[in-house]
């Protein structure tokens, strides 16, 4: 499964995805509504988030590690705030709001399977074409990623010179071949879907 959640307690995992989503959005909205000088008060949410993570049975280290992936963008944009009047307060406000928001979102994603979230979107009347595209993406991305990895290994095994230009050319060609194979696979999948009665 895409982005498979860390081991969690079943009760938390089975709780309504829509409810968890709404709660997370509420937290993010509350944070975004805080004025700049009151933004550090957003840190009061941290104990609640940590408590929720403990109840859910999340491994804190792994949860924090995944949250840190957003750090480069968070820091680089926050630093831009330093170049204006009262920049220190703005920098701190953006840092606090985004850090707490990222932790809340990661908590949601680690306690809710992606398929549940996508089903929630379907129930929210997201266009069917978009929903089916996402479901097929979920189904086939790992196959194509494996194929891309195999092509990369085959290319590495056959390429004696490792110059950057040759690498770019070889990987670009590999992606082109992957796209051609993608279209062929799509034709086969469509035929299989039609054979099973899909429109």
């Amino acid at each position, binding site marked *: 499964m895409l982005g498979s959640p860390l081991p969690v307690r079943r009760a938390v995992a089975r709780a309504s995805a829509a409810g968890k989503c709404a709660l997370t959005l509420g937290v993010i909205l509350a944070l975004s509504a805080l004025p700049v000088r009151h933004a550090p008060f957003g840190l009061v949410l941290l104990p609640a988030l940590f408590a929720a993570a403990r109840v859910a049975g999340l491994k804190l280290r792994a949860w924090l590690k995944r949250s840190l*992936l957003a750090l480069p*963008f968070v820091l680089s944009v926050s630093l831009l705030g330093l170049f204006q009047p009262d920049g220190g307060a703005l920098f701190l406000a953006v840092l606090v709001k985004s850090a707490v928001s990222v932790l809340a979102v990661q908590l949601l994603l680690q306690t809710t399977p992606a398929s549940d979230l996508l089903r929630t979107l379907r129930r929210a009347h997201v266009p069917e074409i978009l929903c089916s595209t996402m479901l097929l993406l979920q189904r086939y991305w790992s196959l194509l990623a494996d194929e891309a990895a195999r092509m990369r290994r085959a290319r590495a095994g056959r390429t004696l010179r490792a110059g950057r230009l040759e690498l*770019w050319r070889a990987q670009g060609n*590999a992606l082109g071949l992957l796209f051609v194979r993608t279209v062929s696979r799509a034709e086969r999948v469509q035929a299989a879907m039609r054979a099973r009665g*899909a429109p």
Partner: protein
Amino acid sequence: MHIPDGFLSARVAAGSGLIAGLGVAFACARVRTTGLGSRRALLGVSAAFVFAAQLVNFPVAAGTSGHLVGAALTAALLGLPAAIVVMAAVLIVQCLAFGDGGLLSLGANVLNMALVSCVVGYAVDRLACGKNPSPTRRVAAVAFAGWCATVAAAMSCAEQLALSGVARLRIVLPAMVGVHALIGLGEAMISALLVGSVLRLRPELLTRSGVNHSRSVLGSGLGLALVAALLLAPFSSAAPDGLLRVAAQLGAHAPASSGIHAPFAEYTLPGLGTGVLATVLVGVCGALLIFGLCWLFALLVVPRRRTPAAPERASSPIAAE
């Protein structure tokens, strides 16, 4: 360029989400009406391709690497509505499955990397390709389109950050555009290599039988005009133009009003007054109004011709728009 949560204000996030939602809904409707909706497998597997292609890293320098984003490329390969649906699906799954990009800022990310990127990339590609392009021109067009799409998305992102009060526009815009102008070179190169490879292996995938070229150019031009109004209008200078400045220096004053009631006087919107949002909306309304008037004028003035039926051409599995 995935904006995490905590950067955008609720108003900017909601506004971006609304525009993104409308754009994606329109694209979904368009995909259904063009018949591509019956080829859901192509959309889904193409989305999986974009997802997988983004995992392939190209070495840059000093231990860094870049990867394809694919908005302009997808638009060139699948057409605009399908590309918007595919990129929106990729971004939503990246957000919900990997936390790449925020939940509240999902609308803004879809606006930047699915709508703005695809529209600009498609428009530039169509305009640069022309009719029956040679392989070299085809590759060059998609490369340039990839670069333009990356820079346009960065401009849109910078505006959202500035409107949210995170940083001043005159600081965040050059920073974002400068960095992404370089990143766009990588996107251009990878797109060019990929399209060149597809042209060698299965060139029919890149030909579109029965495409109405004039409609494609018109749509591209309108799309570019609307995106320009959306992205560039906020940068309009408030300083007086040359005539008014000279008049002020000479002590002459313009009359209070011209006697004609203008609904968008001084480029303001009734009820919204002045400000960036009013300027953008007035720009978009103006572009649509002018396009509509020109279209009407063309319908009245240009005589219609009956064209003979076009000969049958080999069709590609990717449906024409």
